[in-house]
């Protein structure tokens, strides 16, 4: 993809030989920053092209000087060294001339960079505020004004699929033409929510809230991922944003709220669930939330993530099992799931774990047991 920006031309020329080489294999890769889809990222893109062009020009000049020197001042062509070059007027003043020229280039870059930086840190009132919470290894989005929660997990695909590692089960939905504020935080380690088309990155820090913003100009699906090493699943937590028109966004919000209300009612009912129902639901929850560490057959990864198949906890007292799922285990990657899943979900996943992969606890855990343990 050659940049559609005017200033992209010199850089594209520079990149051309390699581009040609690789385009033989496939055509759908990028070699520049992705085409911006928001006002702020457009400004940053232009700044990036400015520094790229300035850098390219500097490299051309430096290369030309070296190539000329290599051509003109060769011993085998009988060049005679000028032993007094460093004492000529140029030799005496180069230490002033060179820094002054470099300083000029520096200041012109710094001034446009500084004005873009002020746009990045602009704190105007937002129309939509989304809290982006990173955790090992998924993204949770909370719409602060609407009480909507979206949990994005990696969609499992084959490494040949065009969307391999780039798709999630439930993307973040945002309106175009409105100012969106992102509040970034984390529940465990550092993460970095990055979708280059729409926002400049700020890292997600546990215990802190960072801020960035977007005014999306084009509808579409934008794909990024986690950019701060967060452990074993770092490569496997895509960040996907679906930008839709404001009308469609309103409609999505209404549907979403209805769905959430229904799920909440189901989870808080006093119904005694059958084992089969809990097992089926538990498998779904396990695949989504637990499998990244504890693996498909509950075998874990020796030395890193403990196995659930045959484990003391999964075959021991149900109360201990519930406790570790609800409260987590400090100092390890085991998160506290209490705040993230409802009573029904936790009851289902605990039941599933206690009756799968040869585990023989045999008991059924009900939502009310979880409520009691919280």
């Amino acid at each position, binding site marked *: 993809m050659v940049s559609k920006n005017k200033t992209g031309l010199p850089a594209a020329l520079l990149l051309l030989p390699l581009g040609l080489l*690789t385009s033989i294999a496939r055509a759908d890769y990028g070699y520049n920053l992705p085409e911006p889809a928001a006002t702020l990222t457009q400004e940053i893109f232009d700044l990036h092209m400015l520094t790229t062009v300035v850098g390219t020009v500097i490299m051309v000049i430096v290369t030309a000087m070296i190539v000329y020197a290599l051509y003109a001042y060769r*011993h085998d062509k009988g060049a005679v060294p000028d032993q007094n070059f460093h004492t000529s007027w140029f030799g005496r003043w180069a*230490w002033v001339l060179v820094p002054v020229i470099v300083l000029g280039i520096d200041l012109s870059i710094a001034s446009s960079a500084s004005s873009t930086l002020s746009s990045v840190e602009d704190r105007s009132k937002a129309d939509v505020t989304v809290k982006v919470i990173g955790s090992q290894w998924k993204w949770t989005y909370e719409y602060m004004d609407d009480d909507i929660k979206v949990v994005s997990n990696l969609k499992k695909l084959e490494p040949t699929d065009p969307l391999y590692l780039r798709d999630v089960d439930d993307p973040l939905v945002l309106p175009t033409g409105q100012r969106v504020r992102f509040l970034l935080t984390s529940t465990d380690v550092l993460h970095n929510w990055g979708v280059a088309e729409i926002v400049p990155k700020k890292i997600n820090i546990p215990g802190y809230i960072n801020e960035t913003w977007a005014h999306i100009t084009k509808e579409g699906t934008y794909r990024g991922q986690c950019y701060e090493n967060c452990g074993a699943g770092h490569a496997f937590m895509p960040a996907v944003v679906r930008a839709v028109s404001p009308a469609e966004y309103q409609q999505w919000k209404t549907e979403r709220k209805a769905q959430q209300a229904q799920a909440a009612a189901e989870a808080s009912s006093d119904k005694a669930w059958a084992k089969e129902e809990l097992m089926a639901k538990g498998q779904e929850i396990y695949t989504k939330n637990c499998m990244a560490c504890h693996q498909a057959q509950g075998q874990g990864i020796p030395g*890193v993530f403990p196995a659930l198949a045959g484990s003391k906890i999964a075959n021991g007292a149900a109360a201990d099992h519930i406790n570790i799922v609800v409260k987590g285990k400090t100092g390890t990657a085991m998160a506290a799931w209490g705040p993230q899943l409802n009573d029904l979900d936790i009851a289902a996943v605990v039941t599933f774990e206690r009756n799968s992969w040869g585990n023989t606890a045999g008991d059924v855990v009900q939502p009310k047991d979880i409520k009691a343990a919280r």
Partner: protein
Amino acid sequence: MSVATAHDDHHDSHDHGPPKGWQRWVYSTNHKDIGTMYLFFALFMLFFGGAMAMYIRAELFMPGVQLANPDFYNNMVTDHALVMVFGMVMPAAAGMANWMIPLMIGAPDMALPRLNNLSFWLLPAAALMLILSILAPYLFPGSGGPVNTGWTLLPPLSIQNGIGMDFTIFAIHMLGISSILASINIVTTILNMRAPGMTMMKMPLFVWAWFFTALLLIAVMPVLAGAVTMLLFDRHFGTSFFDAAGGGDPILFQHLFWFFGHPEVYVLLLPSIGVLGLVIPTFARKPLFGYKALVYGMGVLAVLGMVVWAHHQYTIGMSLFATNYFMIGTILISIPVGLMLMNFIFTMWRGSMTFETPMLFGIAIILMFSFAGVTGVMLAVVPADMQYHDTMFVVAHFHYALIPGAVFGLYAGVFYWLPKWTGHMYDERLGKIFFWWTTISFNITFFPQHFSGLAGMPRRIVDYSIQYTEFNMISSIGGFLFGLSHLLFLYIIIQTIRGGKKAPDKPWEGSQIGTPGLEWTLPSPPPFHSFTQAPVVK
């Protein structure tokens, strides 16, 4: 410059040859022997760290997790960096300092020979600790996962790691002590051991470069030692320096780490700039252009390098003022660096150049390091960096800075001084093949990473989506060729040590021009004890 030495008629009764057997090396207080040990240690670590890089490129050859689990991959990324920085570049540069500084300034040995012995022998112990940190998850089952944080060891992830992290912390402690001791030794030697008449402004540029390097190390190494000690306390003794839940701050570690980490970059670069300052004038047969400007430029670089650390962490959410400060400070670094590179080009200008292997490396360094400087300015621009941050673009940038800037400078030094060290000329034809092989394969490896990075590929990922496949395949093929070229390097070194054409005292025609060191007044190889009587520089 004329020099009166007494090296060829020292027949006093105190003169003795090296001790025999293992005692010569283990008990050594001789700067040449310790220098040799440093260089061999670095050579071993080059292949150790290189093997990890080969695994990394093999894993990234195509999408999908093929060779090992993600934690092992990130463990290799971490230890590749630690081994190359602390185990390879720094010891190699320290080895050259040990060998050459006393010879250049006319000193009989380093100022503190026993300290010198200690600072070397801490290194193998630290290397053992680092190897243990890799093996810990397998040696001690149930002790937690491998060190998977990357060399920055950022909490809270490093708090989650297993016992391997503790081994890494202790390894860093020992490496730090070794560097600090070596640096104190070098500063003392330069200030106190110069031959009569060898004023500071007559010193070869390499000596000046190491003077600033050593000062930087003394200033920043203790900060890293403090930071990893705080990490150790957070892990085992219930403190919360870096845990927000206990009133601490995960970002504090980043500030402490990069307060060390950015000057560390110049610690890696400066010795090689020093080598360039000898190689370029020698083969251009013309004095160094702007010797004073280069000396002061390095001083400015060292000072500026200590006050711009936060450009490694623009995305942590600093205030607008702080971010602006760090951005402008970082961009200003291009002034001393640009001045240095231009001075090297002007040294070539109106010279009379021949292209022996050290010179070829020198020219390649100027060109490729300029390129790293240009991408460095791009990265210094905060809003753009918020897009580049933690992508392969950063990986490409710092490999362009550190491989030409530091490693190729050391190769140039090796070829420049091999005749002096061994008494034999290396095979010039093989040297040139090695130069072209490494330079071309290096560019094939790292140039494509600029593109995959801009397109959005993060660093420290074991697996990637298929849009990055082409660039990674090219990178991996280049990486394997680059790795392979070092077998030739090893062969050239062994061949030169074992024999070859006898090297004259002054193997390079132009080495006496400008501000030469006194090493060329000695035979090749120099006697076990040199300058037992101080030479006089006029």
